[in-house]
């Protein structure tokens, strides 16, 4: 399941609903990304996206994850728009018979979401706004898959 939305969501409730749907899975891995204020200078974050391409790109990643690992289910929820510090940006969940598959698929989806899904983060700080720069680390992370 895939949702791209401006509205907040409850990650625990989503994880429980996902687990209830994922019949036959012994292992569920979730990742949750949260707006973090590293040095107390961030007021909010604005996430821009490319409607249409976002959904296509994430659906393609999920298909790839399903083809590479034995998953009984997968979930991606990603917000866009304005988010306050401490708010949940996105979550990924994977369900599999075996834990190694659930872990690998969740890490794969995260690495691809970071660098290949059309989202752009802008930090609204106390000293102005700035676009978050892509990290070489994130690009490098794709090489392992």
């Amino acid at each position, binding site marked *: 399941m895939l949702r791209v939305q401006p509205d907040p969501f409850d990650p625990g409730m989503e994880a429980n609903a996902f687990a209830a749907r994922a019949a036959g899975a012994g292992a569920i891995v979730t990742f949750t*990304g949260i707006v973090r204020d590293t040095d107390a200078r961030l007021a909010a974050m604005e*996430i*821009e*996206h*490319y409607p*249409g*391409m976002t959904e*296509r*790109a994430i659906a393609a990643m999920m298909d790839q994850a399903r083809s590479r690992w034995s998953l009984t289910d997968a979930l991606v929820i*990603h917000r866009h728009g304005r988010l306050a510090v401490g708010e949940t*940006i*996105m979550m990924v969940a994977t369900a599999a018979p075996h834990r190694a598959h659930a872990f690998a698929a969740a890490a794969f989806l*995260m690495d691809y*979401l*970071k*660098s*290949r*899904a*059309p*989202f*752009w*983060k*802008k930090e609204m700080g106390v000293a102005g706004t700035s*676009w*978050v*720069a*892509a990290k070489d680390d994130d*690009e490098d992370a794709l090489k392992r898959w």
Partner: protein
Amino acid sequence: MIDVLYFAWVRERIGLPRERVATTAATVAGLVAELSAREDRYALAFSDLTALRVAVDQELTTFDAPLAGVREVAFFPPMTGG
């Protein structure tokens, strides 16, 4: 006519999120050259192509991608989702 979309700081530099462009360019690179010749704000946005990514009909591609039959081209910086 092609829909050309801009995101993040590319959108801010060019000053609009999308526009319809009449072009005879054969490739994305040709379209970039046409746009850059229009005005400084375009030239500035496209001054360093290594800092940009391009999607054609909502698929990531490279600047040498052909434009024949294409409906939508989007320019944006490297993604920072997740």
